[in-house]
């Protein structure tokens, strides 16, 4: 997982990859949201929240993160709750829901298969058994695999702050590589997926150097809904090609109102490639990534809009 945590060459590519023990820290187990918020405020940025730990512990071991305290939120009931379908069809996913539980959840597979399909490509079974969806979003790697599908589904996030609970679009949650709107004094409580538009078809594509345990070189999520042969709703989202996961409104605008023929899809794929701002790193050059964006977006759109 760790290699996916940065926007650039991973630390393991350049030297210190192993230390025998985790550095010492103070361990605090929060049992409620107010307690977690109080502890975060007490340590003022010198603490890290621990859920599944599959990113945090690796960052601590490689020296990328040296927190004074680790605040374990795994047993805060308000952050769990698994997957629930609310009245009206909105889906609420507790931040502590493990990636494995999302991968196998029958409701998600029926209502929004895009998300479990994307999650199934992540890391390894062992990591998915432990890692959480909230952790993947809060780690805010530009290549986080849960982000493009959730953005394509117009997901919202519910944040707990000292001033209360607030909900914001996931699109506003990511502020940079490894940075989110949470700052150092808020907790992600749940992910909310609105009821998808009627007839929505969606696809996720990911390209990596290898198939297992690999973070995306480029990932793509698209979602399209047609009415009487015309596209009425379109989402095109890219991962790993900008400081944050990136929605491409220009590509979406080229699709809406059109039948979704080969030229429409090609034009949208071109817009997506233009919008990408990829870096060059050990996993691929900027030009290569842009080219992969064009191909993956076209293929994903062919699957759902053709």
């Amino acid at each position: 997982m760790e290699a996916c945590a940065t926007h650039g060459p991973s630390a393991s590519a350049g030297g210190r990859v192993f230390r025998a023990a985790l550095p010492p820290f103070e361990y605090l187990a929060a049992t409620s949201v107010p307690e977690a918020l109080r502890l975060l405020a007490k340590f003022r940025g010198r603490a890290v929240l621990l859920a599944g730990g599959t990113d945090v512990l690796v960052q601590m071991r490689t020296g990328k993160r040296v927190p004074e305290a680790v605040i374990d939120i795994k047993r805060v009931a308000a952050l769990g709750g698994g997957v629930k379908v609310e009245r009206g069809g909105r889906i609420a996913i507790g931040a502590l829901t493990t990636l494995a539980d999302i991968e196998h959840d029958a409701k998600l597979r029926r209502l929004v298969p895009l998300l479990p399909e994307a999650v199934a490509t992540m890391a390894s079974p062992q990591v998915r058994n432990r890692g959480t969806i909230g952790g993947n979003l809060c780690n805010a790697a530009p290549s986080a695999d849960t982000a493009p599908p959730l953005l394509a589904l117009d997901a919202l996030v519910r944040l707990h702050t000292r001033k209360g609970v607030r909900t914001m679009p996931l699109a506003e949650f990511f502020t940079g590589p490894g940075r989110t709107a949470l700052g150092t004094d808020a907790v992600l409580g749940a992910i909310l997926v609105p009821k998808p538009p009627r007839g929505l078809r969606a696809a996720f594509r990911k390209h990596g150097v290898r198939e297992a345990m690999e973070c995306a070189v480029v990932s793509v999520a698209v979602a399209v809904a047609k009415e009487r042969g015309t596209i009425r709703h379109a989402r095109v989202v890219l991962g790993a090609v900008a400081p944050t996961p990136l929605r491409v409104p220009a590509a979406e605008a080229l699709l809406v109102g059109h039948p979704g023929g080969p030229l429409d899809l090609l034009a949208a794929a071109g817009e997506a490639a233009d919008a990408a701002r990829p870096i060059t790193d050990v996993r691929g050059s900027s030009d290569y990534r842009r080219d992969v964006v064009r191909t993956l977006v076209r293929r994903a759109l062919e699957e759902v809009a053709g």
Partner: protein
Amino acid sequence: MSGEARRSADGGRRTGRKTGAARRAGSGRRPSTVDRRPPTPADRAPAWQITLSVNGDPYRVSVRPNRTLLDVLREELGLTGTKRGCDQGECGACTVHLDGRTVNACLVLAIDADGSEVTTIEGLARRGELHPLQRAFVEEGAIQCGYCTPGMILQAAALLRQNPSPTSAQIRTGMAGNLCRCTGYAKIVKAIGKAAEVMKGQRKGRAS
């Protein structure tokens, strides 16, 4: 779970001890690794008392927060069948079952395993009989240096519990988090397929 964890008064100098019904004695631990950073307040973090069940045996261990489940299994409990590979969740050598799910023991804080049930490679054989997966790995030559084998076998056991008759592609996907650097994967995939057949036969035998 962590509600049971208590800070211990003795600063965590005791080695892991089995409680009550334990049968085997836990072996000694190695001296802990020297940390060369300047001391911070976290260095004086108190030790916690945790209890966990490993292969059915109850243990009470005193741990500092920065000890992982892998550290405790190998160094406190002397269960060295679980291997330390990358220590970053990439290689799967430290795979164990934690409350029925496979995890990388290097990515689980020992404190977090408080109150849990752990199964390691030492707990797979029954009454001196190798588990069908262990036997299949031996018979198919799916072992060379053997370092990845305990993790491979525990992950394979979880895979076969979820999917008793996996295709070879499903085996490869299910084993994606376990690296082998010498045998190669062909024999490992074959051994897991063979064990699946054997285990199906055993279930049929029991049912009839």
